[in-house]
């Protein structure tokens, strides 16, 4: 048995409304089939099933608003024991080993469509406002309908949804990354550059600054990415409904790993319009608030591109997984001393590895390569940043 759960369709999504079932109990589904439509802040999204099997039971009625992770349906996977066949029909004609009847159309009047949960319009709205999950509430209104009073009572006793935040974050990451690798045809281009000009610039700039005002090279990377993207809009975009949609602003999301194993990607809005010092301030602010767990949901959903830097981890490069629905992720390794050829001589230079993971639906490797070259050019002239 497998559960079909309310998916997280974006890291900011905590709950969604099941709008439509496209299947009925008993229907056979295969992995990848779209079986439901879910309403999120971003619109109605078709949701596919991850396992093949037979819909055993629909647990949530259409129109129900439930938290992410709530089981919506039970699916008997292939190989699961079939439920006992119904008692032998009086008509001897039916052979006992007959296949179950083909799934009936959802629109046929006899289809076992789930009964919509009875809840008054006003109670439904109140539940949404108070964040009450009413899927398991017992109603006291006419016909057992859930009323405003029922929701109020539930809101009074419902514990804050703090249970195992860490697990839920891991699950959210898992869903986003799984979706990315399933849907996005990634391509990768990698490049290396001498980082000495940048590091020298930082050293000079920071020499007469107090620690709180010093620049770190991560700010240079974000600033350079934001500027480079101005000429590569297809890398600062979304792939939606079989079409490329350019994002109106350049909001650079920066991957920040948390001490408990979590990962958040708060965005720096309109990063192309910030000075280097402003970028540094934003970077410092996001990191501090991420560590304190005080990021705003909007910051987690507004990124239009992601930068990940494994700076302190001592790796040469990182080829990342694009964060849907974005179309690009820029990865930086650790700048480290490496043999580097200057004017025909091998010298030791700090070398930075950078990688672009691109959505091949949105752009081609040719453009990706040009982007990394543009990035190199910007980072080689740090004073211009």
């Amino acid at each position, binding site marked *: 048995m497998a559960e079909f759960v309310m998916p997280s369709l974006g890291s900011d999504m905590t709950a969604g409304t099941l709008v439509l079932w496209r299947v009925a109990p008993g229907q056979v589904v295969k992995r990848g089939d779209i079986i439901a439509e879910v309403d999120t802040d971003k619109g109605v999204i078709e949701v596919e099933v991850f396992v093949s099997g037979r819909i055993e039971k629909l647990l949530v009625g259409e129109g129900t608003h439930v938290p992410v992770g709530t089981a919506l349906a039970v699916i008997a996977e292939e190989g699961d024991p079939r439920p006992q066949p119904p008692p032998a029909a009086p008509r001897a004609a039916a052979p006992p080993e007959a296949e179950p009847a083909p799934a009936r159309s959802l629109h046929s009047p006899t289809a076992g469509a789930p009964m919509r949960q009875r809840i*008054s*319009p*006003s*109670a*439904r*709205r109140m539940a949404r406002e108070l964040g009450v999950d009413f899927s398991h509430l017992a*109603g*006291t*209104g*006419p016909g057992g*309908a859930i*009323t*405003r009073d029922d929701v109020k009572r539930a809101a009074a006793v419902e514990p804050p949804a703090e249970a195992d935040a860490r697990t839920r974050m891991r699950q959210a990451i898992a869903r986003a990354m799984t979706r990315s690798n399933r849907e996005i045809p990634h391509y990768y281009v990698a490049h290396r550059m001498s980082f000495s000009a940048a590091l020298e610039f930082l050293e000079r700039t920071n020499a007469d600054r107090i620690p709180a005002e010093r620049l770190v090279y991560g700010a240079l990377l974000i600033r350079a990415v934001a500027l480079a993207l101005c000429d590569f809009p297809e890398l600062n975009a979304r792939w939606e409904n079989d079409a490329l949609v350019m994002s109106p602003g350049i909001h650079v999301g920066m991957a920040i790993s948390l001490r408990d194993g979590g990962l958040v990607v708060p965005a720096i809005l309109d990063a192309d319009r910030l000075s280097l010092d402003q970028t540094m301030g934003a970077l410092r602010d996001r990191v501090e608030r991420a560590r304190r767990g005080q990021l705003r949901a909007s910051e987690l959903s507004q990124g239009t591109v992601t930068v990940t830097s494994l700076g302190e981890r001592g790796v040469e490069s990182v080829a990342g997984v694009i964060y849907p629905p974005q179309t690009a992720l820029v990865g930086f390794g650790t700048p480290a001393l490496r043999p580097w050829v200057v004017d025909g001589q091998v010298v030791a230079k700090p070398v930075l590895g950078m990688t672009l993971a691109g959505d091949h639906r949105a752009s081609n490797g040719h453009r990706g390569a040009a982007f990394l070259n543009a990035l190199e050019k910007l980072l080689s002239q740090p004073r211009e940043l």
Partner: protein
Amino acid sequence: MTRSTYREAIRLALATALEADSRVLLMGEDVGRYGGAYAVSKGLLERFGPERIRDTPLSESGFLGAGIGAALGGLRPIVEIMTVNFSLLALDQVVNNAATLRHMSGGQLGVPLVVRMATGGGRQLAAQHSHSLEGWYAHVPGIKVLAPATVQDAHDMLLAALADADPVFIFEHQLLYPTEGDLDPARGPATIGQALVRREGSDVSLVTYGGSLGKALAASDELAQAGISAEVLELRTLRPLDVEAIEATVTKTHRLVIIDEGWKTGSFSAEIAALVAERVFYELDAPIARVCSAEVPIPYAKHLEDAALPQVPAIVVAAKELLGRG
């Protein structure tokens, strides 16, 4: 402030209008020598003479048409029709003339006509004298439809109707004529298009008009004994309808029972229910309930007539069901 019956209050308003404005006249079947089928105009013939208190032949289309003509000619006629059932004979005059002339003349012609008629059942007058068809009239743009339920409104709404430049229809429930209440004759014309909360409540709204107001108030008394606080909203005017007042009471109590003596199908109660669903759907905490007349010609036999009309116990049951206490 005096005590008065509903009938006397209308008579007082008629007399006041006849006294104050020589253009005002009353006409209809038996309004003169007989004093009106419901004795509303008793004594007015003697006081104001046959020129202004005119008995008409049994021809609704004819005398309502005459009223329209008189209004066009500059008079302020009040036409009494014995019951709403009979008014159907004059429906062409209402829909095609009274309601349309201002529009069709490009605003050059107004029809300042007042039409009064009895409506409703409960007095064993059988199927041709007992129906509630005011909802049909409320369907028609170009006229106003009033349904006074109190002694004060019976008086003040007639004055308001006379002051209006367009045709106004007043529906007087026949059970109301002998009812008594306080009357302040000096309060002035009522505001057309204004509903009033007759009793404040918080759990359920009873929305009604005309002859059902008393039943709604009695039901709210009974509900109060069961610990249910019912608000009673009296519409008073069916056209123009006080939609804001309906929205307000539903937004307050989140539950709605509509009491309408008309039949349910295609009725005025259906209009209210539709408006609420359109405008304040998300305020509803229970389905909308309607208490209406049974879908039969109103019977003559007392027990059958009682069973056919909306009654207090049915209102109480409907309200309790909305609270899950059915």
